[in-house]
C-alpha cells in the first residue's frame, strides 16, 4: 500500500503533538525583559532578593520615600526627553537642549539586548518586584525602585523594557541586565520625579494619558 510510506512521518507527528502539549502546559513568558506582574507600585516591607545565585537584603527605604512632584511643572514637560547611548553605556536627560543630568548605566547583556528606537514611558511604578531568568540567571528582585516602563509600536509594553534603579549591582558602565536600563537608584529617583507622566501625591503608580503623555526615551547604539 502506498499510503504506508507516510507512516514514516509518525515520529515527527508525535514530536509535534508533544510540542503542542508542552507549549499549552507551560506558562510561557516570551522574551520578557524585566518581568513584573505587579503594577501596584507599592513597595514590599519584608522580602529577600535573589540575583545570580546570591541572596541579598532588599532596601525598604523606598517604602518611606515621600512622594514629591517638585520638579515637574517648572518647564514644559513635553520638551523633556531621555537619551540612552548603548555603546557608551550612558544616559542623558535633556530639558530641551540643556542637560538635566547624565549618568553611567547598565543595559542588556548580548543575549538579552536592550531594544533601540524611540519609545514613550507608559507607566511609572515607585517600586515593583521583578522575577525571571532561568538556572544560574534566575532573579527575584522585590522593591526594584523607580521603574519607568517604555513602549513603542514595535515593542509593546508587556515585554517589560524600562529604566529603573538598581540595588543588586554597581557595575554601571557595563552591560548587565536582562534588557532593562539599570540606573543608579539616586539617578533613577531624580528621573522618576522629573519625567512625565506626573505622579499624583500619595500615589505609587502613574499611567500616561492623552493629556499627560509619557516622556520620550530614545535609545541608540
Amino acid at each position: 500500500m502506498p499510503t504506508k510510506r507516510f507512516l514514516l512521518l509518525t515520529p515527527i507527528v508525535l514530536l509535534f503533538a508533544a510540542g503542542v502539549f508542552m507549549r499549552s502546559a507551560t506558562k510561557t513568558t516570551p522574551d520578557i525583559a524585566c518581568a513584573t506582574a505587579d503594577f501596584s507600585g507599592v513597595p514590599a516591607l519584608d522580602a529577600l532578593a535573589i540575583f545570580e545565585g546570591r541572596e541579598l537584603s532588599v532596601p525598604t527605604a523606598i517604602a518611606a520615600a515621600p512622594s514629591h512632584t517638585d520638579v515637574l511643572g517648572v518647564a514644559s514637560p513635553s520638551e523633556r526627553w531621555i537619551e540612552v547611548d548603548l555603546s557608551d553605556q550612558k544616559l542623558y536627560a535633556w530639558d530641551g537642549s540643556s542637560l538635566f543630568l547624565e549618568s553611567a548605566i547598565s543595559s542588556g547583556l548580548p543575549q538579552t539586548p536592550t531594544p533601540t528606537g524611540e519609545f514613550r514611558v507608559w507607566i511609572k511604578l515607585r517600586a515593583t518586584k521583578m522575577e525571571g531568568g532561568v538556572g544560574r540567571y534566575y532573579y527575584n528582585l522585590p522593591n526594584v525602585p523607580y521603574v519607568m516602563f517604555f513602549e513603542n509600536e514595535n515593542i509593546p509594553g508587556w515585554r517589560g523594557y524600562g529604566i529603573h534603579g538598581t540595588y543588586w549591582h554597581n557595575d554601571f558602565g557595563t552591560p548587565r541586565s536582562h534588557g532593562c536600563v539599570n540606573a543608579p537608584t539616586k539617578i533613577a529617583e531624580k528621573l522618576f520625579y522629573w519625567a512625565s507622566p506626573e505622579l499624583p501625591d500619595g500615589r505609587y503608580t502613574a499611567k500616561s494619558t492623552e493629556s499627560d503623555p509619557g516622556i520620550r526615551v530614545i535609545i541608540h547604539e
Partner: protein
Amino acid sequence: MNSYLFNLNTHGVFLFIASVLVYEYFIAGEREVFYHSLFSIISALIITVILKELFTIPRPFLVEGMAPGAGLTQLSSFPSTHTALAFALASTVTLHQKKFGVLVFILATAVALGRVIAGVHYPMDIFAGVLVGVLCGLFFDTIHFGKKRAKRR
C-alpha cells in the same frame, strides 16, 4: 583560532551541505541524490524550527552560566536544527552511495558533537535532530516523486 572554531561550529554545517550538494550535482552527476537531499534538508529545517517554537527550552549555556562556544538563534534549544540538516543530508546520501555516505555521516556526527561541546545544545536535542533529519531523508527517498529511480550503489 578560537573565533575560527566558533565560526566553523556555527556556519560549518552550511559549508558542508553546500559542498556535498555541489559535489553531487556537478561532479558526481547524481541529480537524484541532489534533489532528495535538497527536499529533505528544507523539510528538516521547517520541522525543526516549528518544533523549536513549540518547545521553549532554554539553551544549556544559559542554564549553566558559561559563554556559548558557537553562534545560535534566540529560539529554543530543542531540537537541534544543525543536526537535523546534517543528518537529512547524510541519510539521503547513504541511501544512494554507501561509501561516500560513511564520510558524510562522520562529518554530520562532528557537527552534532560540536553543538553539544559548545554548550548550545543538550544531547537530547541532538537525538531529536537526528530523528527528524533521518526521517526526512527516508521519507523523500520513499515517496520519490519524479522520474525513474536511479541505480543504487
